[in-house]
């Protein structure tokens, strides 16, 4: 089969729509664990690759970093898609990831969420999953779009459950949907539903077979752990924890839905139709990323998880963004890859295709982040919206795509975190370490830590309310 280019967005939507997944029932909606404000808080980390059109080598001003005072500021070209969400965001200038490996994509990706040199620490998303999100059926959800392309090595992934060891995201929206919501539909406690998914049969109560299976597995695990030295024991810790989560889901099956909107009772998502071939096809990328965003929002809305990471592509990306139909980069006559464009040269040269494309690419990533915010904001909750109860971070592993420096990192924070964050501001930090940002995020999620990462940098001054 020949891979086709030039498929219109409408065609894609049509294709997806026809084969969309619909799940008939979702019986295991959990009561949402209450945060301080009465509603669960969520944290989402949204990653895109290869930096932004920051300050150039030649000193051209950044096309990313907002300019102005704390409350009166303008958004440069690459942040334009956030104009409608200006009041929902905190634009952060001046944060540094430190000198180590500065200039390196992998070095940046390792530090990005861990704030540890070389990725030698737990990442903020995993730390929150273990703490703030521990009561949810799924502690952490890690979704990707072409984030395992070409057998990407571990230094391309940003979520670290243990020091030095990243995990891989799920790139297939269909698989992710089934994982989160279960297969359902077959009636009875079909074996295929397994422990996965918060959806099972409508029959009340846990399936005794599943309960026995998970008990047996936990026994085997404990027995094995008893034989191990510390290193291997720590390696099994995540496995053990994952079994415990499955145990919780299984043993509370049949708990009637509490607090979730009716739409969660029959979740559907335009995720079907992603064949392996499509998953690697750059023309499908926008639809896949959108499906993953939708899925993350749905999972959070339905109380299935409180902490998620969305990884769009990987650093030094070979994603041919000029094949995104309908985007401003679209050009069927020319293949422009993300990483290729990011090396636009020493100056912002409007005559250069790499540069103009790179600006557009950055804008496109930001528009996807804006879409995520749209979705959160369009869902009313507890007198406000989901966005009011969430903290969402937009991040990439280097600042300027050409210089690769790890200073003045392009972070944008969004959402009120249940009142913990006052948005609509521009904050500048003169070289403070980004571990402080993660510490602030942790605090906004109710985790009162002093610092995060391998520096003593505490929460960023002025970021959190009160």
């Amino acid at each position, binding site marked *: 089969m020949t891979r086709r280019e030039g498929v219109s967005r409408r065609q894609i939507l049509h294709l997806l729509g026809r084969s969309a997944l619909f799940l008939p029932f979702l019986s295991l909606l959990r009561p949402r664990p209450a945060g301080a404000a009465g509603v669960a808080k969520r944290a989402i980390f949204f990653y895109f690759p290869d930096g932004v059109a920051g300050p150039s080598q030649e000193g051209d001003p950044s096309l990313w970093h907002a300019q102005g005072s704390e409350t009166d500021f303008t958004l440069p070209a690459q942040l334009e898609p956030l104009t409608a969400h200006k009041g929902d965001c905190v634009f952060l200038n001046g944060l540094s990831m430190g000198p180590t*490996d500065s*200039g390196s994509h992998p070095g940046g990706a390792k530090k990005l969420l861990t704030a540890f040199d070389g990725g030698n620490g737990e990442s903020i998303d995993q730390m929150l999953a273990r703490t703030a999100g521990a009561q949810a059926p799924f502690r952490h959800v890690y979704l990707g779009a072409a984030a395992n392309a070409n057998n990407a090595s571990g230094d391309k992934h940003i979520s670290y459950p243990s020091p030095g060891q990243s995990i891989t995201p799920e790139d297939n929206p269909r698989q992710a949907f089934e994982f989160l919501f279960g297969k359902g539909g077959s009636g009875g406690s079909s074996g295929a539903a397994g422990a996965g998914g918060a959806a099972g049969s409508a029959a009340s109560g846990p399936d005794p077979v599943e309960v026995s299976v998970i008990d047996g597995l936990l026994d085997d695990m404990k027995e094995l752990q008893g034989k191990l030295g510390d290193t291997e024991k720590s390696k099994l810790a995540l496995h053990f924890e994952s079994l415990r989560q499955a145990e919780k889901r299984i043993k509370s099956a049949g708990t009637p839905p509490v607090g979730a909107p009716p739409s969660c009772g029959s979740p559907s998502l335009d995720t079907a139709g992603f064949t392996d071939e499509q998953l690697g096809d750059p023309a499908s990328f926008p639809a896949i990323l959108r499906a993953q965003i939708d899925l993350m929002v749905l999972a959070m809305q339905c109380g299935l998880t409180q902490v998620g990471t969305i990884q769009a592509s990987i650093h030094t990306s070979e994603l041919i963004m000029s094949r995104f139909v309908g985007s401003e980069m679209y050009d069927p006559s020319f293949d422009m890859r993300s990483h290729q464009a990011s090396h636009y040269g020493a100056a912002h040269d409007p005559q250069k295709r790499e540069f103009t494309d790179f600006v557009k690419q950055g804008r496109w990533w930001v528009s996807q982040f804006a879409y995520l915010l749209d979705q959160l904001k369009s869902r009313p909750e507890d007198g406000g919206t989901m966005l009011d109860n969430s903290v969402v971070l937009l991040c990439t592993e280097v600042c300027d795509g050409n210089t690769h420096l790890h200073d003045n990192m392009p972070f944008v924070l969004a959402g009120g975190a249940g009142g913990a964050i006052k948005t609509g501001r521009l904050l500048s930090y003169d070289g403070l370490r980004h571990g402080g940002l993660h510490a602030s995020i942790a605090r906004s999620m109710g985790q009162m830590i002093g610092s995060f990462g391998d520096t003593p940098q505490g929460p960023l001054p002025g970021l959190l309310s009160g």
Partner: protein
Amino acid sequence: MLDPHDCTGRQPARVRSRLGLLLGASMLVALASACAGLGASAPDEAAGVDAGGSGPGAGGGGGDRASGAKLYGQLCASCHGQLGEGGVGKPIAGWTRGEAELVSIIDARMPTTDPSRCTGACAADVAAYILAELKGGAATCSEAPLLPRRLRLLSRREYEASVRDLLSAPGTSGAGGAGGATGTGGACKLDADCAIESESCVGGACAKDPCNLRTFVFSPGSKTYKSVHVAGDFNGWPATIGGGGWALGYVASKGIWAGKHVVDSGGHQYKLVLDEATWVVDPGNPKKSPDGFGGDNSVLDVACPAEGQPGGQGQPVGLPADLTKGFPVESRPKGFAFDDSADGGLVTSVHVDQYMKAASAIAAQALDGASALVPCQASTADAACAEALVRQLGRRAFRRPLAEPEVARYKALFGAQAAPESGLRVVLEVMLSSPHFLYRSELGEPQPDGTYRLTPYEIAGALSYQFWGTSPDPDLLLAAEQGDLSTPDGIEVQARRLLADPRSRAVAAAFALQWLGVERITGEVKSQLLFPTFEHATGVAMAEETSRFFTHVVFDGSHRLDELFTADYTFVDQPLAAFYGLPAPSGGAGQWGKVSLPPARRAGVLAHGSILGSYAHSDQTSPIRRGVFVRETLLCQPLGTPPPQAGGVPKVDPNATTRERFRQHTDNPVCKTCHQYIDPVGFGFEGFDAVGRPRDTEGGVAIDATGDLTDVERLGAGTHAAFDGLPQLAAALVSSEQLHACFALQYYRFAHGALEGPADACALQGIREAFDKSGHDVQELMVAVTRSPSFWGRK
């Protein structure tokens, strides 16, 4: 793989002038140091960093080795090598100039990309580690440290194979174990075109085939044939394929010839004809009858019921073809090409969910009554049946006999269920997603000297996964039980048995694709404007070509590594032959065959589309990726991290060849520090475009595929090997020691699921020697790995 950080040095004019004034000096330093400060003119100082650096340093002694080991891996190894053997940076192993000087140099100047990164205690720790552990050469062998005890999570490939084997083998896998799939005989060793991976065939037909559709299989052993066909009373005994003989196709992944044909009911006699000349009985069919010429014909009795299912006992459990489709992909550490990283195997919630789902699906199938796995009627199972299941399946799933408390625990699980069927289901599901199944144990037993030694069962598992990628078969478990695996010779006997079995081919092919980094070709996206004939199926066929070629060389050809690079033939099917512009193989559509290559392509695997296309961009070739591939993958010469600010890939320019566009790399002294090692090698591939087709010109200009394989044995050595085109590059490679040493290292990484460390130095040396001694016989290398103490010793 090094990121394709192509360094063109092209800057707009206004930029260049300002650059010189504002940033010139500091940027040049940054760029040069990112390439590890190794200029072309750097003198070759063995076992030492630069002279000088005589400052007092941060004190001597007292560094923390363990911390130093970690830091060395992060900060130093990419340039100086995992073992301090050198790379882009100088060799550091066997340092003789004293600790104070070493500390001082690290403190002040290392790593060159960021000297502030490792000062004070860091420098002391790293120095302590280097002095204590990186001794270089054979010095460490007498006190060889060992790999740590560990658990190794099954990769998707291993999980899938293990599960299928557990379910398709007869349940009687106890000591005795004659019933397993062993040896090479048996007409139904595998199922040629009935979806080889998902079905097995029984009694001459695939289980799902109609009764009269028979599968013929011929295992050529170590011999090579051009053709095999079936001739008998059903087709008029034709001596040739052209005369109506039923041609069998060669299935490289299994190393057998196979084909299926409809045979009418009744008794038939037939023979196999090799190379249209040699008539033999079907060695896989025990039924014979005298042929009247002093020999035998094979006998095939086909008795099909009017409307019936194919009969047969012990049918395999039907499993979904995409059993592991939803499993998370394996995390591969940087620099580690394989899917079996021991460190990377972390089990997340997604894993647990997928394991349990798969186990549930498998159990449902197994209890369907079709499997011999369950030794009784599920609906009337009693405790004795459950115990038999636990002991039999447990022994194979956990790759060891179960301990009595384990048996008791599983029996209790069975007993706790309301219905016997549920009880069996729980037992099956727990067993198939138990950590004892999912992790291969390398924990060992304590030895008097404080080290550990793998148990015989663990050794059986290690052998089985290395060669077959699956659970040990009954013979291997029996060998473990009988104590046959306690000596290197005993291990070797089993290693050779596994290697001789066709099942070793699939793993060898998987190794090859991963080693060469060409799995990606199956998903490669190329410019449809420039390469409209490159389709998804083309990439898939290219991977198949490399699989078939590699297994042919290793199992059917000379077995020698060199043949991989010098072969004047390859394997193609018709579409791939047409794509490459090669003559079509004999046989019809869908048939793969060996074809000889035109002179320009006689470079073995180097001229495979899988490599040429994987190491290229979507719209142009990449001498950089191809050059880095040779350095890092084939020669194990890592080039470190590319510098920032290096500029992008030069645009496709209809008026210049790729080579001209990249000339800046070697004209610009900054770029040259690294690219002198990359581009002159990568240019040798220029006779092939970005999808692996030959080309004589680019943009109307004749292709120049000359190059120089400098410093092939060691970066910085100052040697040259000029060549023109791939065959000459291949010749230069096979005449180097480093190609062979690197291959041994790569296979060792695959077998051990880890990048090498000082603990492996001694083992690697012994393995390389054995490999050299064998004339670089790849099979001998595979066996040598199992004879090394690193195979069974742990700490």
